[in-house]
Protein backbone atom coordinates (compact mmCIF):
# COMPACT_ATOMS: atom_id res chain seq x y z
CA UNK A 1 0.00 0.00 0.00
CA UNK A 2 2.71 2.42 1.00
CA UNK A 3 4.29 2.00 -2.43
CA UNK A 4 1.35 3.92 -3.88
CA UNK A 5 1.79 6.98 -1.74
CA UNK A 6 3.07 9.81 -3.93
CA UNK A 7 5.80 11.87 -2.40
CA UNK A 8 7.29 15.20 -3.30
CA UNK A 9 10.85 14.66 -4.57
CA UNK A 10 13.62 15.57 -2.17
CA UNK A 11 15.47 18.51 -3.64
CA UNK A 12 19.18 19.24 -3.54
CA UNK A 13 20.12 22.90 -3.25
CA UNK A 14 21.36 24.44 -6.50
CA UNK A 15 23.32 27.65 -5.92
CA UNK A 16 23.42 28.26 -9.66
CA UNK A 17 19.64 28.67 -9.77
CA UNK A 18 18.81 31.50 -7.41
CA UNK A 19 15.29 32.67 -6.64
CA UNK A 20 16.53 35.59 -4.56
CA UNK A 21 19.93 37.19 -5.27
CA UNK A 22 20.04 38.47 -1.68
CA UNK A 23 20.58 34.89 -0.44
CA UNK A 24 23.89 34.54 -2.30
CA UNK A 25 24.95 38.10 -1.46
CA UNK A 26 24.45 37.49 2.27
CA UNK A 27 25.93 33.97 2.15
CA UNK A 28 29.08 35.42 0.57
CA UNK A 29 29.26 38.25 3.08
CA UNK A 30 28.86 35.91 6.07
CA UNK A 31 31.32 33.30 4.85
CA UNK A 32 33.99 35.90 3.93
CA UNK A 33 33.56 37.43 7.39
CA UNK A 34 33.92 34.07 9.17
CA UNK A 35 36.17 34.17 12.23
CA UNK A 36 36.96 32.29 15.44
CA UNK A 37 37.87 33.70 18.87
CA UNK A 38 41.34 32.13 18.63
CA UNK A 39 42.09 34.79 16.01
CA UNK A 40 41.94 37.55 18.64
CA UNK A 41 44.90 37.90 21.06
CA UNK A 42 42.71 38.12 24.18
CA UNK A 43 45.63 37.40 26.51
CA UNK A 44 46.96 40.89 25.73
CA UNK A 45 44.09 42.15 27.90
CA UNK A 46 45.25 40.36 31.06
CA UNK A 47 47.09 43.41 32.42
CA UNK A 48 44.24 45.73 31.53
CA UNK A 49 41.76 43.42 33.25
CA UNK A 50 43.80 43.72 36.44
CA UNK A 51 43.29 47.51 36.42
CA UNK A 52 39.49 47.16 36.71
CA UNK A 53 37.94 47.49 40.13
CA UNK A 54 36.24 44.36 41.54
CA UNK A 55 32.76 45.80 40.89
CA UNK A 56 33.74 46.67 37.31
CA UNK A 57 35.01 43.14 36.76
CA UNK A 58 31.83 41.66 38.17
CA UNK A 59 29.74 43.93 35.90
CA UNK A 60 31.76 42.93 32.84
CA UNK A 61 31.43 39.20 33.52
CA UNK A 62 27.69 39.58 34.13
CA UNK A 63 27.20 41.57 30.93
CA UNK A 64 29.06 38.92 28.91
CA UNK A 65 27.09 36.14 30.56
CA UNK A 66 23.84 37.89 29.59
CA UNK A 67 25.10 38.17 26.01
CA UNK A 68 26.03 34.47 26.06
CA UNK A 69 22.43 33.60 26.97
CA UNK A 70 21.05 35.52 23.97
CA UNK A 71 23.58 33.93 21.61
CA UNK A 72 22.71 30.50 23.00
CA UNK A 73 19.01 31.10 22.34
CA UNK A 74 19.61 32.37 18.82
CA UNK A 75 21.95 29.44 18.05
CA UNK A 76 19.76 26.62 19.33
CA UNK A 77 16.22 27.99 18.98
CA UNK A 78 15.92 31.35 17.17
CA UNK A 79 17.66 30.69 13.86
CA UNK A 80 16.53 27.02 13.62
CA UNK A 81 12.91 28.08 14.31
CA UNK A 82 12.94 30.12 11.09
CA UNK A 83 14.09 27.19 8.90
CA UNK A 84 10.60 25.78 8.20
CA UNK A 85 9.44 29.25 7.09
CA UNK A 86 12.28 29.79 4.61
CA UNK A 87 11.11 30.96 1.21
CA UNK A 88 14.06 29.45 -0.68
CA UNK A 89 16.51 26.57 -0.05
CA UNK A 90 19.29 29.16 -0.06
CA UNK A 91 17.61 31.00 2.79
CA UNK A 92 17.80 27.76 4.79
CA UNK A 93 21.54 27.59 4.11
CA UNK A 94 22.02 31.20 5.24
CA UNK A 95 19.98 30.56 8.40
CA UNK A 96 22.13 27.53 9.20
CA UNK A 97 25.21 29.77 8.88
CA UNK A 98 23.59 32.34 11.19
CA UNK A 99 22.80 29.61 13.70
CA UNK A 100 26.38 28.35 13.68
CA UNK A 101 27.91 31.83 14.04
CA UNK A 102 25.72 32.41 17.10
CA UNK A 103 27.37 29.31 18.57
CA UNK A 104 30.77 30.85 17.78
CA UNK A 105 29.71 34.07 19.53
CA UNK A 106 28.50 32.19 22.61
CA UNK A 107 31.76 30.24 22.62
CA UNK A 108 33.79 33.47 22.38
CA UNK A 109 32.58 34.78 25.72
CA UNK A 110 33.87 31.61 27.34
CA UNK A 111 37.25 32.28 25.68
CA UNK A 112 37.27 35.74 27.25
CA UNK A 113 36.38 34.22 30.63
CA UNK A 114 39.03 31.51 30.52
CA UNK A 115 41.66 34.09 29.51
CA UNK A 116 40.83 36.82 32.01
CA UNK A 117 38.72 35.52 34.88
CA UNK A 118 38.72 33.14 37.80
CA UNK A 119 36.49 30.09 37.50
CA UNK A 120 34.69 31.05 40.69
CA UNK A 121 33.81 34.52 39.37
CA UNK A 122 32.46 33.04 36.16
CA UNK A 123 30.41 30.36 37.89
CA UNK A 124 28.87 33.06 40.06
CA UNK A 125 27.92 35.09 37.00
CA UNK A 126 26.26 32.11 35.31
CA UNK A 127 24.26 31.56 38.47
CA UNK A 128 23.38 35.28 38.52
CA UNK A 129 22.13 34.97 34.91
CA UNK A 130 19.83 32.14 35.86
CA UNK A 131 18.40 34.13 38.74
CA UNK A 132 18.23 37.64 37.29
CA UNK A 133 14.53 38.41 36.69
CA UNK A 134 15.10 40.96 33.89
CA UNK A 135 17.49 38.80 31.89
CA UNK A 136 15.18 35.83 32.27
CA UNK A 137 12.15 37.96 31.33
CA UNK A 138 13.65 39.21 28.07
CA UNK A 139 14.80 35.72 27.10
CA UNK A 140 11.35 34.29 27.85
CA UNK A 141 9.53 37.01 25.94
CA UNK A 142 11.50 36.27 22.79
CA UNK A 143 11.23 32.49 23.22
CA UNK A 144 7.45 32.86 23.42
CA UNK A 145 7.49 34.41 19.94
CA UNK A 146 9.72 31.63 18.58
CA UNK A 147 7.64 28.70 19.80
CA UNK A 148 6.16 26.10 17.43
CA UNK A 149 3.01 27.28 15.71
CA UNK A 150 3.94 30.96 16.04
CA UNK A 151 3.32 33.31 13.12
CA UNK A 152 6.43 33.06 10.86
CA UNK A 153 6.62 36.82 10.39
CA UNK A 154 6.23 37.53 14.11
CA UNK A 155 9.11 35.10 14.64
CA UNK A 156 11.22 37.20 12.27
CA UNK A 157 10.24 40.41 14.07
CA UNK A 158 11.36 38.92 17.40
CA UNK A 159 14.55 37.65 15.78
CA UNK A 160 15.46 41.08 14.35
CA UNK A 161 14.88 42.64 17.76
CA UNK A 162 17.18 40.08 19.38
CA UNK A 163 19.90 40.57 16.73
CA UNK A 164 19.64 44.36 16.36
CA UNK A 165 18.38 45.63 19.74
CA UNK A 166 18.61 43.25 22.69
CA UNK A 167 22.37 42.73 22.54
CA UNK A 168 23.16 46.41 22.86
CA UNK A 169 22.73 46.91 26.59
CA UNK A 170 25.62 44.45 26.73
CA UNK A 171 27.70 45.61 23.76
CA UNK A 172 27.82 49.08 25.30
CA UNK A 173 30.24 48.02 28.04
CA UNK A 174 33.17 46.70 25.95
CA UNK A 175 32.82 49.79 23.71
CA UNK A 176 32.97 51.95 26.86
CA UNK A 177 36.09 50.15 28.12
CA UNK A 178 37.66 50.42 24.68
CA UNK A 179 37.02 54.19 24.60
CA UNK A 180 39.09 54.35 27.80
CA UNK A 181 41.83 52.19 26.28
CA UNK A 182 40.85 49.19 28.42
CA UNK A 183 40.22 45.60 27.22
CA UNK A 184 40.92 46.70 23.65
CA UNK A 185 41.46 43.16 22.32
CA UNK A 186 38.21 42.03 23.88
CA UNK A 187 36.58 45.02 22.15
CA UNK A 188 38.05 43.84 18.83
CA UNK A 189 36.36 40.49 19.34
CA UNK A 190 33.06 42.14 20.28
CA UNK A 191 33.25 44.27 17.11
CA UNK A 192 33.44 41.06 15.07
CA UNK A 193 30.28 39.88 16.82
CA UNK A 194 28.58 43.26 16.23
CA UNK A 195 29.45 43.06 12.54
CA UNK A 196 27.89 39.59 12.25
CA UNK A 197 24.75 40.60 14.15
CA UNK A 198 24.33 43.56 11.78
CA UNK A 199 24.25 41.21 8.77
CA UNK A 200 21.86 38.84 10.61
CA UNK A 201 19.43 41.65 11.51
CA UNK A 202 19.62 43.06 7.99
CA UNK A 203 18.93 39.70 6.33
CA UNK A 204 16.12 38.54 8.62
CA UNK A 205 14.55 42.02 8.31
CA UNK A 206 14.83 41.79 4.54
CA UNK A 207 13.08 38.39 4.50
CA UNK A 208 10.41 39.83 6.80
CA UNK A 209 9.75 42.60 4.28
CA UNK A 210 9.50 40.06 1.43
CA UNK A 211 6.86 38.16 3.41
CA UNK A 212 5.04 41.33 4.48
CA UNK A 213 4.58 42.68 0.96
CA UNK A 214 2.48 39.64 0.02
CA UNK A 215 -0.14 40.34 2.73
CA UNK A 216 -3.28 42.45 2.65
CA UNK A 217 -3.22 45.87 4.37
CA UNK A 218 -5.10 44.63 7.47
CA UNK A 219 -2.54 41.90 8.15
CA UNK A 220 0.31 44.32 7.43
CA UNK A 221 -1.11 46.70 10.03
CA UNK A 222 -1.50 43.87 12.54
CA UNK A 223 2.17 42.95 12.16
CA UNK A 224 3.29 46.55 12.48
CA UNK A 225 1.25 46.92 15.68
CA UNK A 226 2.78 43.68 16.94
CA UNK A 227 6.30 44.93 16.17
CA UNK A 228 5.87 48.24 17.97
CA UNK A 229 4.15 46.59 20.95
CA UNK A 230 7.00 44.08 21.23
CA UNK A 231 9.76 46.68 21.01
CA UNK A 232 7.98 48.65 23.77
CA UNK A 233 7.79 45.56 26.00
CA UNK A 234 11.41 44.64 25.31
CA UNK A 235 12.52 48.22 25.91
CA UNK A 236 10.73 48.22 29.24
CA UNK A 237 12.65 45.12 30.34
CA UNK A 238 15.93 46.42 28.86
CA UNK A 239 15.58 49.65 30.85
CA UNK A 240 15.27 47.75 34.11
CA UNK A 241 18.09 45.38 33.17
CA UNK A 242 20.26 48.35 32.23
CA UNK A 243 19.54 50.22 35.47
CA UNK A 244 20.36 47.17 37.55
CA UNK A 245 23.67 46.65 35.79
CA UNK A 246 24.86 50.21 35.19
CA UNK A 247 23.46 52.33 38.06
CA UNK A 248 26.50 51.35 40.10
CA UNK A 249 28.94 53.07 37.71
CA UNK A 250 26.53 55.86 36.80
CA UNK A 251 26.18 54.98 33.13
CA UNK A 252 22.49 54.04 32.90
CA UNK A 253 21.37 57.14 30.98
CA UNK A 254 24.28 56.84 28.57
CA UNK A 255 23.39 53.20 27.89
CA UNK A 256 19.74 54.14 27.35
CA UNK A 257 20.61 56.59 24.58
CA UNK A 258 22.47 53.71 22.93
CA UNK A 259 19.39 51.50 23.37
CA UNK A 260 17.12 54.11 21.72
CA UNK A 261 19.52 54.48 18.82
CA UNK A 262 19.68 50.73 18.29
CA UNK A 263 15.92 50.22 18.70
CA UNK A 264 15.44 52.65 15.81
CA UNK A 265 17.96 50.76 13.70
CA UNK A 266 16.21 47.45 14.46
CA UNK A 267 12.91 48.98 13.28
CA UNK A 268 14.64 50.21 10.12
CA UNK A 269 15.79 46.65 9.40
CA UNK A 270 12.10 45.69 9.37
CA UNK A 271 11.35 48.63 7.04
CA UNK A 272 9.63 50.67 9.76
CA UNK A 273 10.12 54.26 10.88
CA UNK A 274 11.98 55.28 14.04
CA UNK A 275 10.30 55.10 17.44
CA UNK A 276 12.61 57.28 19.53
CA UNK A 277 13.12 60.95 18.57
CA UNK A 278 16.62 62.17 17.59
CA UNK A 279 17.14 63.93 20.94
CA UNK A 280 16.75 60.60 22.78
CA UNK A 281 19.31 58.93 20.50
CA UNK A 282 22.31 61.15 21.07
CA UNK A 283 24.84 58.47 21.84
CA UNK A 284 28.05 59.42 23.61
CA UNK A 285 30.52 60.20 20.77
CA UNK A 286 33.18 58.12 22.51
CA UNK A 287 30.94 55.06 22.18
CA UNK A 288 30.25 55.83 18.51
CA UNK A 289 33.97 56.19 17.86
CA UNK A 290 34.64 52.88 19.61
CA UNK A 291 31.96 51.22 17.48
CA UNK A 292 33.45 52.33 14.18
CA UNK A 293 37.05 53.39 14.73
CA UNK A 294 38.80 55.16 11.84
CA UNK A 295 35.50 56.19 10.34
CA UNK A 296 34.28 59.63 11.17
CA UNK A 297 30.82 60.82 10.25
CA UNK A 298 31.22 62.79 7.05
CA UNK A 299 29.34 66.05 7.00
CA UNK A 300 30.79 68.22 4.28
CA UNK A 301 27.58 70.25 4.32
CA UNK A 302 28.04 71.62 7.83
CA UNK A 303 31.79 71.96 7.41
CA UNK A 304 32.56 69.59 10.29
CA UNK A 305 34.97 66.69 9.98
CA UNK A 306 37.80 66.39 7.52
CA UNK A 307 35.61 65.21 4.68
CA UNK A 308 36.61 68.07 2.42
CA UNK A 309 39.68 66.00 1.69
CA UNK A 310 38.66 63.72 -1.12
CA UNK A 311 38.99 60.12 0.04
CA UNK A 312 42.36 58.40 0.26
CA UNK A 313 43.06 55.33 -1.86
CA UNK A 314 41.05 52.35 -0.70
CA UNK A 315 41.51 48.74 -1.74
CA UNK A 316 38.95 47.61 -4.26
CA UNK A 317 39.04 44.45 -6.30
CA UNK A 318 36.49 45.14 -8.95
CA UNK A 319 38.37 44.75 -12.21
CA UNK A 320 35.73 46.58 -14.21
CA UNK A 321 36.22 49.66 -12.01
CA UNK A 322 39.02 51.09 -14.10
CA UNK A 323 38.24 54.35 -15.82
Amino acid at each position, binding site marked *: MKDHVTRAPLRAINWNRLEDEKDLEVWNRLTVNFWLPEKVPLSNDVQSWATLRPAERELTIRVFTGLTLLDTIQNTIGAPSMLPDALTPHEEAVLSNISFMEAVHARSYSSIFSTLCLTKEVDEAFRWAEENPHLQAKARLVLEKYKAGADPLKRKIASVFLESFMFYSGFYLPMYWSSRAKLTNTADLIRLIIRDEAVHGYYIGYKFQRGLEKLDPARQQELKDFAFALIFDLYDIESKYTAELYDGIGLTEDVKAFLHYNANKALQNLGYEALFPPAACEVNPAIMAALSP*DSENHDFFSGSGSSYVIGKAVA*TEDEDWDF
Partner: protein
Amino acid sequence: MGGLVYYSSASGNTARFVQRLGLPAGRIPISAKEAMPAPALPHVLICPTYADGEGRGAVPKQVIRYLNDPDRRALLRGVIATGNRNFGATYALAGKVIAEKCGVPLLYSFELAGTETDIARVLAGLEKFWGTECLTMA
Protein backbone atom coordinates in the same frame (compact mmCIF):
# COMPACT_ATOMS: atom_id res chain seq x y z
CA MET B 1 19.52 72.98 -8.08
CA GLY B 2 21.19 69.86 -9.46
CA GLY B 3 19.78 66.37 -9.52
CA LEU B 4 19.95 63.18 -7.51
CA VAL B 5 20.69 59.62 -8.55
CA TYR B 6 20.60 56.72 -6.10
CA TYR B 7 21.01 52.97 -5.78
CA SER B 8 18.97 50.90 -3.37
CA SER B 9 18.99 47.11 -3.18
CA ALA B 10 15.86 45.06 -2.53
CA SER B 11 16.15 45.88 1.20
CA GLY B 12 14.96 49.39 0.27
CA ASN B 13 16.75 51.48 2.94
CA THR B 14 18.17 54.07 0.53
CA ALA B 15 14.91 54.15 -1.45
CA ARG B 16 13.00 54.99 1.76
CA PHE B 17 15.48 57.79 2.52
CA VAL B 18 15.12 59.28 -0.97
CA GLN B 19 11.34 59.05 -0.76
CA ARG B 20 11.38 61.03 2.50
CA LEU B 21 13.71 63.64 0.98
CA GLY B 22 10.90 64.39 -1.47
CA LEU B 23 13.29 65.46 -4.26
CA PRO B 24 13.11 64.08 -7.78
CA ALA B 25 15.71 61.33 -8.17
CA GLY B 26 16.75 58.75 -10.76
CA ARG B 27 17.15 55.17 -9.54
CA ILE B 28 19.96 52.93 -10.72
CA PRO B 29 18.18 49.61 -11.35
CA ILE B 30 18.97 46.48 -9.32
CA SER B 31 18.89 44.35 -12.46
CA ALA B 32 21.71 44.72 -15.00
CA LYS B 33 19.12 44.17 -17.74
CA GLU B 34 17.23 47.39 -17.04
CA ALA B 35 18.15 50.80 -18.44
CA MET B 36 20.35 53.16 -16.41
CA PRO B 37 19.08 56.66 -15.61
CA ALA B 38 20.50 59.24 -18.05
CA PRO B 39 20.78 62.51 -16.14
CA ALA B 40 21.15 65.60 -18.32
CA LEU B 41 22.34 67.84 -15.45
CA PRO B 42 24.97 67.78 -12.73
CA HIS B 43 23.91 65.51 -9.87
CA VAL B 44 24.79 63.93 -6.54
CA LEU B 45 24.85 60.14 -6.09
CA ILE B 46 23.48 58.41 -2.97
CA CYS B 47 25.04 54.98 -2.58
CA PRO B 48 24.86 52.22 0.07
CA THR B 49 27.90 50.19 1.17
CA TYR B 50 28.23 46.41 0.82
CA ALA B 51 31.83 45.88 1.93
CA ASP B 52 33.09 42.68 3.49
CA GLY B 53 35.35 42.72 6.56
CA GLU B 54 38.34 43.73 4.43
CA GLY B 55 36.48 46.48 2.59
CA ARG B 56 36.13 44.55 -0.67
CA GLY B 57 33.01 44.96 -2.78
CA ALA B 58 31.99 48.19 -1.03
CA VAL B 59 30.44 49.75 -4.14
CA PRO B 60 27.52 47.78 -5.63
CA LYS B 61 28.21 46.39 -9.14
CA GLN B 62 25.35 48.35 -10.67
CA VAL B 63 26.78 51.62 -9.32
CA ILE B 64 30.16 50.74 -10.81
CA ARG B 65 28.40 50.13 -14.14
CA TYR B 66 26.67 53.48 -13.83
CA LEU B 67 29.95 55.30 -13.11
CA ASN B 68 31.86 53.51 -15.85
CA ASP B 69 30.08 55.68 -18.41
CA PRO B 70 32.17 58.86 -19.05
CA ASP B 71 29.13 61.02 -19.86
CA ARG B 72 27.33 60.15 -16.65
CA ARG B 73 30.51 60.42 -14.62
CA ALA B 74 31.24 63.89 -16.05
CA LEU B 75 28.02 65.14 -14.46
CA LEU B 76 28.74 63.69 -11.00
CA ARG B 77 29.41 66.44 -8.47
CA GLY B 78 29.37 64.66 -5.14
CA VAL B 79 28.51 61.48 -3.29
CA ILE B 80 26.45 60.70 -0.18
CA ALA B 81 27.14 57.28 1.32
CA THR B 82 25.06 55.05 3.54
CA GLY B 83 26.04 52.14 5.73
CA ASN B 84 25.88 50.78 9.24
CA ARG B 85 28.33 51.79 11.97
CA ASN B 86 28.25 48.20 13.16
CA PHE B 87 30.58 47.40 10.26
CA GLY B 88 33.30 49.40 12.01
CA ALA B 89 36.02 50.89 9.85
CA THR B 90 34.17 50.02 6.63
CA TYR B 91 31.15 52.14 7.64
CA ALA B 92 29.89 54.00 4.53
CA LEU B 93 33.10 52.97 2.73
CA ALA B 94 31.40 53.15 -0.71
CA GLY B 95 31.42 56.95 -0.37
CA LYS B 96 35.19 57.12 0.16
CA VAL B 97 35.83 54.75 -2.75
CA ILE B 98 33.61 56.72 -5.15
CA ALA B 99 35.01 60.08 -3.98
CA GLU B 100 38.54 58.81 -4.67
CA LYS B 101 37.75 57.17 -7.99
CA CYS B 102 35.68 60.01 -9.40
CA GLY B 103 37.44 62.99 -7.79
CA VAL B 104 34.29 64.35 -6.17
CA PRO B 105 33.68 65.27 -2.51
CA LEU B 106 32.07 62.85 -0.07
CA LEU B 107 29.27 65.12 1.13
CA TYR B 108 27.64 63.15 3.90
CA SER B 109 27.13 59.70 5.36
CA PHE B 110 24.24 58.21 7.27
CA GLU B 111 23.06 54.85 8.58
CA LEU B 112 20.45 52.56 6.98
CA ALA B 113 17.35 54.55 6.00
CA GLY B 114 18.55 57.69 7.81
CA THR B 115 17.03 59.66 10.70
CA GLU B 116 14.97 62.86 10.69
CA THR B 117 18.20 64.70 11.45
CA ASP B 118 19.85 63.17 8.38
CA ILE B 119 16.93 64.20 6.16
CA ALA B 120 17.08 67.80 7.41
CA ARG B 121 20.88 68.00 7.03
CA VAL B 122 20.88 66.55 3.52
CA LEU B 123 18.05 68.83 2.34
CA ALA B 124 19.72 71.95 3.73
CA GLY B 125 23.15 70.73 2.64
CA LEU B 126 22.15 70.02 -0.95
CA GLU B 127 20.53 73.44 -1.28
CA LYS B 128 23.69 75.11 -0.01
CA PHE B 129 25.91 72.85 -2.13
CA TRP B 130 24.09 73.62 -5.39
CA GLY B 131 24.11 77.32 -4.52
CA THR B 132 27.88 77.19 -4.16
CA GLU B 133 28.14 75.12 -7.34
CA CYS B 134 26.25 77.80 -9.34
CA LEU B 135 28.55 80.53 -8.02
CA THR B 136 31.59 78.49 -8.96
CA MET B 137 30.26 77.98 -12.47
CA ALA B 138 29.34 81.63 -13.03
